[in-house]
């Protein structure tokens, strides 16, 4: 299915690979039930426990809208959507069938990205520690985070990990070609984001 507004389904240019749909699926009913439950939890548990003012507040003899009204309204939207799924669209003919492999895919992707950014975060400071250990210097990564080549170490290694990892996931294995492309992509991004701009910090240099 190709969806309405431009740019939203940009990366799905054909029906191939779209979620399978099944007339016998009850995913609308399950999703609807979960949404009603989630909306109830938001409105009756999260909002009362985690918002200071109520739906309407009296401040110095003036009644005004409190901070709870907006999130309760959001919960009402979710609840109405859930109820419509349960009672109006329950037998809709085009219900998506979710598979465990979707969860596995997104889990692996998230792990690759999180690992890549953790490598990015610690590779630079770790390299400085190793250099200090080898040379006996007392360099601090924080002071070097805006000078080459130190500032590129984390981004370079972590970036290659993310790009090559996701390519390997899509193709079912890592190849030398993919690794080369990942290196080229990361170098290109450094050239785009860092070299022309003095005031931009590549990840993770704003955090270290």
């Amino acid at each position, binding site marked *: 299915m190709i969806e*309405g507004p431009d740019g939203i389904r940009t990366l*799905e240019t054909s029906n191939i690979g779209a979620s399978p749909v099944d007339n016998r699926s009850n995913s609308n009913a399950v999703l609807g039930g979960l949404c009603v439950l989630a909306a109830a939890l938001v409105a009756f548990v999260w909002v009362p426990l985690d918002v200071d003012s109520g739906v309407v507040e009296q401040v110095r003899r003036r009644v005004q809208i409190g901070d709870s009204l907006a*999130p309760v309204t959001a919960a009402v939207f979710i609840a109405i959507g859930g109820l419509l799924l349960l009672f109006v*669209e329950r037998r809709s*003919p085009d219900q998506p069938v979710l598979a465990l492999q979707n969860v596995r895919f*997104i889990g692996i992707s998230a792990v690759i*990205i999180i690992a890549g950014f953790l490598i990015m975060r610690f590779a630079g400071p770790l390299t400085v520690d190793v250099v200090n250990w080898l040379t006996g210097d007392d360099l601090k990564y924080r002071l070097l985070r805006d000078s080459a080549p130190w500032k590129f170490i984390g981004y370079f290694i972590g970036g290659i990990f993310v790009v090559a990892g996701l390519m390997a996931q899509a193709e079912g294995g890592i190849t030398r070609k993919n690794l080369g492309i990942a290196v080229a992509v990361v170098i290109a991004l450094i050239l785009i*984001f860092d070299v022309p701009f003095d005031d931009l910090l590549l990840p993770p240099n704003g*955090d270290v």
Partner: protein
Amino acid sequence: MGVGDYILQGILAFFLGSELFSIFGIPVSINIAMVLAGFLLGIMVGATPGLAGPVAMAISLPLLLSSFGYHASALLPVLGFLIGIMKGATVGGAVPAILFNTPGTPDAYMTTLDGFPMAQKGQAKKALRIAHFSSASGDTFSDLVLFVCAPFLAIIIEAHLDLPEKTALLILSLSFIAAVIGGSPAKGLISTGLGLLAVFIGTGEDFYPRLSLGTDQLARGFPITTAVLGVLILGAVFEGIDNLLREKRETGSFSAVRESGDQGLHWRDIRRLMPYISRSALIGTAIGALPGIGSTLAATLGYTVGKSRHQKRKSPDDLDFGAGAPQGIAATEAANSSVSGANLIPVLSLGIPGNAAAVFLILAAESIGGFVPGPAVFKFTTDTVNPELVIAFGLFTAMAFANVLNWTIGGLFMRTMGIMIRIPKQMLLPSVLLLTLTAIYIQETRLEAIWFALGFGVLGYAMRKLEISPLPFVIAFILGDKLELSARRAFSASGNDPFFLFSTPIATILMLLAIGVLVYTARKRRLEASA
């Protein structure tokens, strides 16, 4: 200042902006260069399956902000660049659709039906010329409608709508977007509710930031870039990789077709195509003016109306729609291109984004400051200069200039972009992901933003898998604060009337429409399901 003075000031602001260089002593403004660069980039990304205008807009925004800063003088070059991308991508989407049967953008899907058969018969260049002519015609018509309608609509709204009506109008917009995008009002409402819930976290008027679970991270709220780019771009990247993984789709080998026959676009061709182009331009403009419906529906409707006309009037020698009829390409391209200009009518007159490209224009304007899209922009003050109005007419000039580029060099550049199809998606998508996360980090400079974006990306992926459109989420995220502020003011101004949304006839009508559109679409959905 009179109306004419404002228009003149806008034109001058665009053409006489900061000088980039001069040719024979004639200064060339940075604004001109930025629209040109955006337009060419837009054609390139439009011609690349897997990319589209919003992706390029998302990635270039932080670089533009860093280059031009956060001052009103940055508005025209930055917004001009983004407008250039928006227009270029619309034209570029037809290239792979015609040459390789793969639409570069979703709204070019119908173009494949007649474009690819024409290319297979050796008429690729002619098909590209028809697509370009139709696209440029539709786009220009739509822009003219925008230039005329947006100021009038804004003036009417500013004159007749008070705080309760404006609040009701925002609710109507959200309800309309929820009801029509994606075809399921229930899922649209869920998407809208999630977007509202996300934007309300860590905000509010109390000393304690609401819903922050006592954490500093949530107390600052979610940065808008993490939510918008996460749900829209990262979610789409995840889905694209997942599709590749599952289908093991082969890429990179294409059979060559030798060109044959007349490749030119002649006056007699144009005369035959014009009835289709004009109908589709009207359809696309009407659809584009409504927030959230989008160019794919416009393309489908334009194609369907064109097909019905073609069946009645075609001569026995003419090819049918779907078999390589030039009229099919014209009907589709004129319809989807005429959406882009009209889509800015709700943005400029109401401050309500109707599609993903408009979301990034609002994001850019909000980041820079000095220009808040909405009815206040079109205040024709006579005693003092309204700088926002000058910028608005500067933007209209940028759009008109992009159209000139489209008519002059657009077709030529578009026909050279067939090579972009050769970039394999399995390499492109991970690169886009790192590009997007890098763009988010350099704007926020904290790793938390990456984790938030990743979380929103997972949400965007899940929404797509559950056939929930992410666009209502994004629009609700952008409009949430505005809705709350408007409701607080309206409540206060009405003397704490709990029924302030029904306190005036216009507000009541808008609220009834908001409920009515949901009831109508839900009922229609139920009938479809039981049919």
